[in-house]
């Protein structure tokens, strides 16, 4: 049984805005084991980026508040002890952002940026060593003409190359967990597969863990061991990827997969009517209730608790809680 690398327990994250407080993450729990690849899917605005940013400790400082919950990385609660947490996170976690162009400082060369990363590492490296390490990192991400890239500015590189550079930078530290926030969403479809495969390769070969957020559901299905489905700041379904993708339990997940075009030509559904609830005044009961085709009266009143369905699949839905109570 591999040990738990990351354990998040009933995490709530709020944003203070002009109009009030956005209750984005709502008592969310999640865990990642060593070497495990976890997928995180959900529609835009459901809080995936907020979750990742909380783990990476880069939440916008004054606006974001964490009123409840714990995030334990390597048995260190990073929320309780910020200083120790920060060190633990920086040593063990790297993150790839959605837009590689925005991730790279336009006024710095790749070499300068990488040198800054290496400067902060405990090992003392000579200049020659540093260059070797940088080139190695670039080669690991299959970068053509790495020497030229090293001395280039981001504006001289293509989108795909920029994302590779970002991945290479994440590799400069020997991290145990990689957070990938829609790493291919702003790239060409043709490059998408390459980048995802590259990422998967590096994670598996390096024995690392990964949380992959992506809209490319096919890729998530292939590349992850487990998948969590997020809606409006909560994880509503989680389980082994094959399981969840094969037989989605939650009505939202079902709707999500129905809306995805498949090669088997079943056509796509009309999507899920409605939109995300307001985070300012979130509904008391299940946050999906207003849009749910199978909504029960109980759904508007109380939050569904997480229930295990058929072995390795957990769902937060009243449809299943009632089943369990009835002894099924």
């Amino acid at each position, binding site marked *: 049984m591999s040990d738990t690398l990351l354990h998040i327990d009933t995490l709530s994250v709020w944003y203070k805005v002009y109009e009030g407080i956005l209750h984005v993450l709502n008592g969310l729990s999640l865990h990642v084991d060593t070497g495990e690849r976890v997928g995180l899917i959900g529609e835009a605005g459901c809080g995936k980026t907020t979750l990742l940013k909380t783990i990476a400790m880069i939440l916008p400082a004054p606006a974001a508040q964490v009123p409840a919950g714990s995030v334990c990385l390597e048995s260190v609660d990073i929320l309780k002890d910020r200083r120790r947490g920060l060190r633990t996170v920086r040593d063990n976690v790297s993150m790839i952002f959605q*837009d590689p162009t925005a*991730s790279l400082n336009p006024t710095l060369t790749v070499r300068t940026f990488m040198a*800054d990363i290496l400067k902060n590492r405990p090992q003392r490296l000579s200049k020659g060593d540093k260059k070797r390490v940088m080139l190695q990192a670039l080669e690991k991400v299959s970068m053509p003409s790495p020497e030229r890239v090293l001395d280039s500015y981001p*504006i001289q590189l293509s989108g795909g190359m920029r994302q590779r550079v970002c991945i290479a930078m994440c590799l400069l*530290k020997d991290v145990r967990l990689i957070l990938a926030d829609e790493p291919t969403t702003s790239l060409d479809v043709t490059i998408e597969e390459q980048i995802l495969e590259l990422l998967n390769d590096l994670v598996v070969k390096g024995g690392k863990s990964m949380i992959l957020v992506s809209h490319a559901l096919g890729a998530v299905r292939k590349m992850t061991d487990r998948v969590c489905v997020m809606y409006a700041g909560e994880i509503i379904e989680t389980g082994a990827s094959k399981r969840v993708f094969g037989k989605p339990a939650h009505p939202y997940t079902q709707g999500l997969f129905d809306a995805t075009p498949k090669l088997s030509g079943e056509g796509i559904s009309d999507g899920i009517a409605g939109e995300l609830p307001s985070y300012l005044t979130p509904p008391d009961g299940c946050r999906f209730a207003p849009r749910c085709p199978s909504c029960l009266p109980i759904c508007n009143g109380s939050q569904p608790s997480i229930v295990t369905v058929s072995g390795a699949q957990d769902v937060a839905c009243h449809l299943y809680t009632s089943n369990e109570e009835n002894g099924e």
Partner: protein
Amino acid sequence: MQSMPVFIVKRLFYGVIVLLALSFVIFSFIRLIPGDPVRMSLGPTVPEDVVERMRSDLHFDRPIPVQYFHWLSGVILRGDFGQSLFTRRSVGRDIAEFLPRSLELALWSAILILIFGVLVGTISALFRNSWLDNALRLLSYLGVVTPPYAFAILFLLMFAFYWRVFPLGGMPDLPPELYTTGMVGFDGLIHGRFDIFLDSLRHLALPAISLSLGSIAYQARIHRSAMIDNITKDYIAFADVVGVSRRTVIGKHLMKPSFIPTLTIFGLQVAALLGNAFLIEVMFRYPGFSRYSLNVIMAKDPYGIVSVTMVFGVIFAFANILIDLGVAWLDPRVRLRTGG
């Protein structure tokens, strides 16, 4: 970047053309205004034939383009800026005497503006919304709306009259054997005369501070907002995540892009500096080029005015080119777009 030298040459070339055109326009403008500057300068009692002779010496009887051509060729070939009707000396000599002192004042002011503007702006941005930030912002706002001569009055009252820390004005002359650039403090320094250097600072302090305070405030505001805009950018968060030390993130990753708008605005500050120097030099009785220019302008001295305008134009153009180079150095996107 192979485009850089091309960039500079193109700018220089264009700058020269603009200045030539401007000098011609101004020269013509002056000569076209009715009035007889020669007679005004010599006074009513001088006999007419003397005035006639002076007029022809100065080529005032020829058509305007010819006059201009004579002046221009004199400048280019001999460094001869013509005769000033005001000081009755060669304008070139006047410029050589007064310009270095004003340059000294302007350089110190520019240094103050750049250093303190960035410093205050950075502190303000890093301690955003704290009491320190709010106090600095308030002071900056007051600094922006106060004309330099108001500051000059304030400082004269406080530091020259009540607390006699600084002198009331003026500037000591350099002993002639030390004359290298004409800048009192600088020449004193390179000749090892620390006392002269310190004395020059004492005389420069109040004028330079009065000149620069308003601009410091303006720079601080721009720099502060640039840093605040950039601190939320993805590339800062990414640098944090990927392991760059906080000190480097703020000191390099944040500062460098924030400098771009700051430096761009600096050009305006230079223009303001050159303009406001007029009043400051008058108020502090500083024997500088601006004060000389003012007198020459008020006296409607043709060669004086056109030469003086050219000098300002050249300084201004030079400063702008330096600034553009600085921005291009900071921001590779600019570099790689020009020349293409």
